């Protein structure tokens, strides 16, 4: 019983960075921009967050540093693909490769460093409920903020005027342009916001989840988050659910090991990646369904006038 509570707790914690990054990428893609640089952005933000937490001891500043680093790198990406019309695949890939190298370079001095112990957070009263308390109510505040964020994004995309403009630009940039909306600036805003969320996700990994810095800490979560948007057929709440599902698969390997299943740890470590591949194949199986849900201008450059 207690093990199950811990497994649920671990699933929520490991799903949170995926959800944050996935929601950020969803915003990008709803505006028509595919950011394959997520992995690199998360890495740079992870080391920025870790460095901030290490120097100041404040989680909040760490998240701010992560969001800032992520937003800046995403802005560079956005400038290239939105104004210079560079290929979105190649540019995203370049940002990922740069982010890997840059974070490794900046992080050299932080390998093996420990963060100051922070006091664990508990939701008052609710945390004392047996089973549910340890499973759901003893998390870092960011775990709850992520759920709130998903709801906020639902409201923003489907209930606010700005969200409608964003979606219109993702579906038909030429029409939105003809109506007088500033397609490029809205796209840039979406890319920067998405990058900042990927940044918070990166900082969560290095400051709360790990908490440490090693080269390549993000370990493919940026790419899994990219797969999540397809998996969720570009719906925010499904991104959240998908993130917890993948978080659960990540935790499953530890649960299986704990249960004494006699399979080599390296084989179990393949699970999240294999799960991503299988789920991606199952979801993408029906091209018509993907076409209906995918923002129509996703990945395509926009030339005004």
């Amino acid at each position, binding site marked *: 019983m207690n093990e199950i509570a811990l497994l649920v707790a671990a699933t929520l914690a490991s799903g949170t960075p995926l959800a944050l990054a996935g929601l950020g990428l969803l915003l990008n893609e709803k505006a028509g921009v595919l950011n394959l640089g997520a992995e690199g952005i998360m890495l740079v933000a992870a080391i920025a967050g870790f460095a901030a937490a290490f120097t100041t001891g404040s989680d909040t500043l760490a998240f701010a540093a992560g969001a800032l680093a992520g937003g800046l790198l995403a802005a560079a990406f956005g400038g290239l693909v939105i104004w210079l019309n560079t290929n979105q695949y190649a*540019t995203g890939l370049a940002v990922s490769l740069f982010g890997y*190298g840059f974070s*490794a*370079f900046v992080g050299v001095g932080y390998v093996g460093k420990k963060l100051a112990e922070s006091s664990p957070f508990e939701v008052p009263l609710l945390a004392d409920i047996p089973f549910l308390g340890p499973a759901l109510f003893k998390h870092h505040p960011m775990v709850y903020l992520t759920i709130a964020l998903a709801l906020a994004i639902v409201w923003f995309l489907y209930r606010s005027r700005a969200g409608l403009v964003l979606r219109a630009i993702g579906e038909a940039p030429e029409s939105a342009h003809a109506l007088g909306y500033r397609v490029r600036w809205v796209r840039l805003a979406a890319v920067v916001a998405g990058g900042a969320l990927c940044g918070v996700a990166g900082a969560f990994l290095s400051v709360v989840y790990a908490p440490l810095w090693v080269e390549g800490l993000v370990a493919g979560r940026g790419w899994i988050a990219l797969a999540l948007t397809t998996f969720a057929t570009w719906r925010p709440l499904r991104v959240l659910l998908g993130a917890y599902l993948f978080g659960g698969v990540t935790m499953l390997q530890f649960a299986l090991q704990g249960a004494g299943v006699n399979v080599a740890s390296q084989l179990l470590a393949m699970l999240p990646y294999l799960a991503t591949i299988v789920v991606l194949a199952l979801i993408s199986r029906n091209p018509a369904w993907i076409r209906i849900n995918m923002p129509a201008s996703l990945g395509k450059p926009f030339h005004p006038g």
Partner: protein
Amino acid sequence: MLRLEARPQPSQAMALVSPLIALVLTALMAAALFAALGKDPGRGLAVFFFEPLNGMRAVSEVLLKATPLITIALGLAVCYRSNVWNIGAEGQVLLGALAGGGVALWLTTQGIVLPKAVAVPLVLAGGVLGGMAWAAITALLRDRFNASEILVSLMLVYVAQQLVNFLVFGPWKDPAGFNFPQTKTFDASTWLPPLLSNTRLHVGIALALVVAAAMWVFMFRTYRGYQLQVGGLAPAAARYAGFSASASLWTALMISGGLAGLAGAMEVAGPLRQLTPHISTGLGFTAIIVCFVGRLHPLGIVLASVLLSMMLIGGELGQSRLGLPNALTGVFQGLLLILLLACDTLIHYRVRLARRIPA
């Protein structure tokens, strides 16, 4: 105010000049970074761009590192020209290394000593098949399930690395290796023959150059190569002409998977001579940069491989001679690709000084 003006036709000259501009900009940024780190910028640049070519021995090391880069990038160029985004060459390299290394290890543990002319081709063929098999997963999922080849091939890199770890930490570990995660050293009969005495350079570089020539013929002088390029440039036109998109996908991925696998096998039968968890240190990713810097052209790829190989060795030299972190290479590689993509804008646009018209 600066303004971009579309050119009536893409500029051929700019397509060739743009990598050079990007390289110069990368070098300038590198110099600034060296200065910021308190090192002499001139000395830093020399370590990255001159010392790797200083002397026969140094040149042989550059060519040794360029060998897998050329091989992998040639295959990737076929993919990118056909608009198939295989970014998981790293995984295909690892599987090639496992398959080729597996053949060599089996011969070694069975005590079978074949003539080099038989053993080496066996190892390399194993590598090609291993890489192709790994790429086939991506091709199958793209073809039958419409799954993004970008994400699938990339995810398979992580799976491949865990597979390598599993084998060298587990079943394939050398029992007499003091518990280090590594296999036995392969029997000498499976090693690639050296090309120059007293260096590590092996015949693989010659093989890579032969492959480069063959790829040039394939891409620019065969009907199949033409079909692939049309499919990449104008998918609708290719469909109208009756070229099968699925056949193009499979061809591109089998070629690039096979060549990446060959590169992996050449690494283990060349300089490494055993399997460890660190078979490939990002060669499959560096090859992507090579591919773009080399303009997806075989000759360009050979030149770009030498350049990127110099940067890799420069990173090692910078670490040993100047105390710079080796990770700098990754920063420069990433910068080079980002700047290149930015400079490529000049192929399609002209920068114009636009005067504001007074209202």
